[in-house]
């Protein structure tokens, strides 16, 4: 049984060559079609994702969620989109028109572009560029540009202030995110996304749990989900950088945000949960695609869950947490991992000649256990340190209020 994508490719390629196209032209046409299908699918799957998210959020908050349009309300998103499409796009006076309309376009494009390097199965990937991870970092930063453009061109104080705050947070969390992108690269020895996914008979989330957790936190901030939803802290800055957007221009920001969250889930699934890997995925690549989708939705569910349960944290806490905790922690983790890996490689190379190999689970065990040990030690120290800081802060506050006389119960009103 072959791979479903390869089958389609062979069919189309045969068809086009049969019609008299040269193989190069046929390849180009198929690549164009594939890109079109990919871009459309990323946007179409949103209709399901937004419904899913609203339904799950509803259940978390003890509501039913959308239930009117279609069975179980599944067409609610379609209705919303149609409504937004027929609404007026209000252009604020004094707005800079070109960046004003460029911002939502860049926002949507930057999210779709990420999908070009995500491996769906063992053989199917948009394009396996040799700088895959660097490409992710570059394309991911485009969204930040869109936020700044939107805030700057709206001619609105809330939008500008919101954009500056959002950009400050997004660029800060970019640093730990890219640092943790480095961990799979370091272990795999390649920036190709296909190779990173293939080199995980033991998922990196198991051999490097701390790296996976830091990456999850940084990505949650990049997407702007609670507890990091300062991008649109409605109680402080109305709607942040998208205050002046209405109609479908707003819908595009909305769609980009949701698509970004789903893309984040797919990235974590690829980099730390083994992507398409699973029992039988190498023989039957179509099975790999199913594993990939399941893992992506598992991570996506986690992000909905955090959105439904965690409160928003203050901007100074967000920034301190990044610069004073996540970045030093990531740096320490990377340095220690590199050192431990290097030392273990020289010491254990004689006993385990397959130390660097990622071919099978048994080959990877010695290396994975060393990585796991480093991660657990660093993680335990970090938790101990942050608990110590919390205890000190609490004691400081207790000293600050200790001069106030305690009030006995029942006597306060006399």
């Amino acid at each position: 049984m072959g791979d479903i994508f390869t089958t389609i490719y062979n069919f189309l390629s045969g068809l086009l060559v049969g019609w008299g196209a040269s193989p190069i032209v046929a390849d180009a046409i198929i690549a164009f079609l594939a890109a079109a299908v990919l871009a459309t699918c990323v946007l179409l799957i949103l209709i399901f994702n937004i419904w899913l998210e609203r339904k799950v959020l509803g259940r978390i908050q003890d509501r039913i969620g959308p239930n009117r349009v279609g069975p179980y309300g599944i067409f609610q998103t379609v209705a919303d989109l149609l409504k937004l499409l027929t609404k007026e796009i209000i252009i604020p006076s004094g707005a800079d028109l070109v960046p004003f309309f460029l911002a939502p376009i860049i926002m949507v494009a930057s999210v779709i572009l990420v999908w070009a390097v995500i491996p769906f199965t063992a053989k199917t990937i948009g394009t396996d560029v040799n700088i895959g991870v660097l490409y992710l970092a570059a394309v991911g930063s485009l969204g930040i540009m869109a936020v700044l453009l939107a805030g700057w061109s709206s001619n609105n104080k809330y939008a500008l202030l919101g954009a500056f705050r959002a950009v400050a947070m997004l660029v800060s969390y970019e640093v730990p995110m890219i640092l943790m992108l480095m961990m799979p690269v370091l272990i795999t020895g390649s920036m190709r996304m296909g190779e990173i996914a293939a080199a995980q008979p033991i998922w990196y989330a198991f051999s490097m749990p701390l790296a996976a957790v830091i990456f999850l936190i940084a990505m949650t901030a990049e997407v702007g989900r609670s507890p990091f939803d300062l991008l649109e802290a409605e109680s402080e800055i109305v709607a942040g950088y998208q205050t002046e957007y209405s109609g479908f221009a707003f819908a595009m920001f909305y769609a980009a945000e949701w698509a970004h969250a789903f893309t984040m889930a797919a990235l974590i699934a690829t980099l730390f949960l083994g992507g398409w890997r699973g029992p039988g995925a190498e023989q039957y690549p179509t099975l790999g695609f199913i594993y990939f989708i399941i893992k992506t939705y598992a991570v996506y569910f986690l992000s909905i869950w955090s959105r439904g349960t965690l409160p928003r944290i203050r901007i100074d806490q967000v920034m301190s947490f990044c610069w004073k905790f996540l970045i030093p922690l990531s740096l320490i983790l990377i340095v220690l991992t590199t050192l431990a890996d290097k030392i273990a490689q020289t010491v254990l190379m004689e006993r385990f000649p397959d130390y660097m190999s990622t071919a099978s689970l048994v080959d990877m065990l010695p290396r994975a256990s060393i990585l796991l040990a480093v991660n657990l030690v660093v993680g335990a120290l970090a938790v101990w340190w942050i608990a110590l800081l919390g205890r000190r802060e609490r004691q400081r506050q207790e000293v600050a209020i200790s001069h106030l006389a305690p009030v006995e119960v029942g006597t306060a009103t006399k």
Partner: protein
Amino acid sequence: MFEQYYPIAVLVLLATVLSIIVVFLSRIMGPRRPTPKKSAPYESGMSPIGPAVRRLPIKFYLVAVLFILFDIEVIFLLPYATLVRELGVYGLIATGIFVFILTIGLVYEWKKGALDWE
């Protein structure tokens, strides 16, 4: 080289064209009746006071400078991460010095209070 980046170029084109079509579609389908009050910038129901683009706190620029420093560091580290095996101990020491210098910078900023968000 070309085959690798052709799909990305196609995707850039498609994503842009798709977005532009959607914006145009909504311009055609949606009404357009601007009034001075409607198109005034939103300021919680008040008439806007002064220009919107004004001076902003220096802390935002500080974060931007810090980010540039660290982002360059991280982007330089990425190629090293792919070549750890080939570069051996020499590369390890060289990168160690590189990271060490930047860590001194981070500690200095921390002690100076540049990382405190007022």
